[in-house]
């Protein structure tokens, strides 16, 4: 059997911009920010006091007592997004399809909030026991396993953890599984719940966080802002999707992954450019075909400068004709979940012809001299979009999508 084409037939999300795809798409197209003040009992001990929190989500209304005991926030987000993705795909996984369909989830820190909460009790209150379900609640594969149980997905199931590239790696591997014929459909994406006290403190320590806002590509940028939530998709064998008359949101056409093999935190222009090259090459596309890039665009000095240089290296003269925006300016950096939420911006570009802007853009930076779609969304006819993710550890993962 030859390689299959891969269709995206379902999408779901929960993040700082909304609890589903339509509300997130509306915010992305309006350039509306979901970043705001953090609400934390120990707020006065934090120097970073802003973030892209999910607001108005009441887990107790969605999940039973037993489920709440088993679901860390990252699992709750993942399940919420997966439910929307599966429902919108119209697929029914009972029967033979469910035997072969699977799940690949990306997450950076998994159940870190559960760890923080429970280990905190041991150290702070000198208690000698924790809740008996801490292990199955905190483990990184909890979200993927619960997705499989709720939707009857009995094929390949694993979790990928490559820091800020986790969900792009997860979706790239799901793409390969469907493309090779190993699975007819995969639920895939990423989830992150990074706002534990210890987690925020750890990020503060690196000195890369902004205290006042995420301003990617702007000369005035001063760091990243965290976000939380999940994005999930259904990737499906194109023939299978077409045969049932599914509404195909976009086609996944290429995936490139590389390792810088150079530095644990500083990104490499060359490693990022090679990942872009690899994604386009697998898709059989030239840079001129790409209309939109969803940037990694963290808003740190190092990432944005390096990413723009990488795009110039990979695109050559075509770099001047491509639009590139960072939606992290609106939803924050969801770390292991970020690429999944950002894929929604790529689908919006392809399907709706709306390019999400880079908001909070104040002043051009000569080191970021690309068309960063400042502040206001744009209408454009886009045939191909790519989504960049460049993680700490020097791990790069780029997905290429084509309009269906």
């Amino acid at each position, binding site marked *: 059997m030859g390689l299959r084409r891969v269709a995206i037939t379902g999408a779901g999300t929960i993040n700082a911009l909304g609890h589903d795809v339509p509300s997130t798409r509306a915010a992305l197209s309006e350039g509306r920010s979901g970043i705001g003040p953090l609400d934390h009992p120990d707020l006065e001990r934090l120097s970073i006091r802003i973030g892209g929190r999910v607001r108005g989500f009441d887990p107790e209304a969605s999940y039973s007592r037993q489920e709440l005991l088993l679901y860390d926030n990252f699992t709750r987000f993942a399940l919420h997004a997966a439910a929307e993705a599966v429902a919108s795909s119209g697929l029914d996984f009972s029967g033979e399809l469910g035997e072969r369909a699977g799940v690949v989830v990306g997450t950076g820190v998994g159940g870190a909030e559960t760890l923080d909460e429970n280990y905190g009790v041991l150290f702070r209150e000198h208690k000698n026991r924790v809740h008996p379900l801490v292990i199955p609640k905190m483990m990184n594969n909890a979200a993927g396993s619960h997705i499989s149980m709720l939707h009857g997905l009995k094929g390949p199931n694993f979790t990928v953890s490559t820091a800020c590239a986790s969900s792009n790696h997860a979706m790239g591997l799901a793409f390969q599984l469907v493309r090779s014929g190993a699975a007819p459909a995969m639920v895939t994406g990423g989830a992150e719940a990074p706002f534990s006290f210890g987690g925020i403190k750890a990020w503060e320590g690196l*000195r*890369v966080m902004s205290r006042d806002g995420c301003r990617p590509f702007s000369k005035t940028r001063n760091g990243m802002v965290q976000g939380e939530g999940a994005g999930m998709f259904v990737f499906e064998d194109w023939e299978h999707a077409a045969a049932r008359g599914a509404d195909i949101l976009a086609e996944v056409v290429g995936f490139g992954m590389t390792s810088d093999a150079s530095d644990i935190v500083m990104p490499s222009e060359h490693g990022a450019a090679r990942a872009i090259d690899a994604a386009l090459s697998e898709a059989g596309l030239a840079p001129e075909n790409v209309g939109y890039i969803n940037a990694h665009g963290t808003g740190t000095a190092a990432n944005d400068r390096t990413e723009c240089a990488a795009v110039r290296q990979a695109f050559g003269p075509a770099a001047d004709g491509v639009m590139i925006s960072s939606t992290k300016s609106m939803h924050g950096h969801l770390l292991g979940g970020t690429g999944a939420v950002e894929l929604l911006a790529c689908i919006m570009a392809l399907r709706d012809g709306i390019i999400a802007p880079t908001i909070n853009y104040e002043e051009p930076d000569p080191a970021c001299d690309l068309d960063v779609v400042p502040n206001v969304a744009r209408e454009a006819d886009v045939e191909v979009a790519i989504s960049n993710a460049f993680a700490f550890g020097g791990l790069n993962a780029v997905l290429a999508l084509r309009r269906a």
Partner: protein
Amino acid sequence: MSDDVRDKVVEIIAELAVLEPSDISMDNTLEDLGVDSLGLVESIFAIEEAFEIDVPFNANAPESSEFDISSVGAIVEAVRGLVAAKKG
């Protein structure tokens, strides 16, 4: 004349740079001493712990931080300022 702030800052930087304190002069930049970006955030952490102060430093915008890291001498003066401010 002994200078506790200077001696402690030099000791911290020397340890990170794997040098003797006597190898370090006030005119040296961290770059001269082979301290990279991770070494810099480590040295700031060590300074905060040693002097029980909070150092306002953002690695994204070192030039616009209130904390001057342009040389060892500048760091010593910045720490002196923060220690004095803490004593009020």
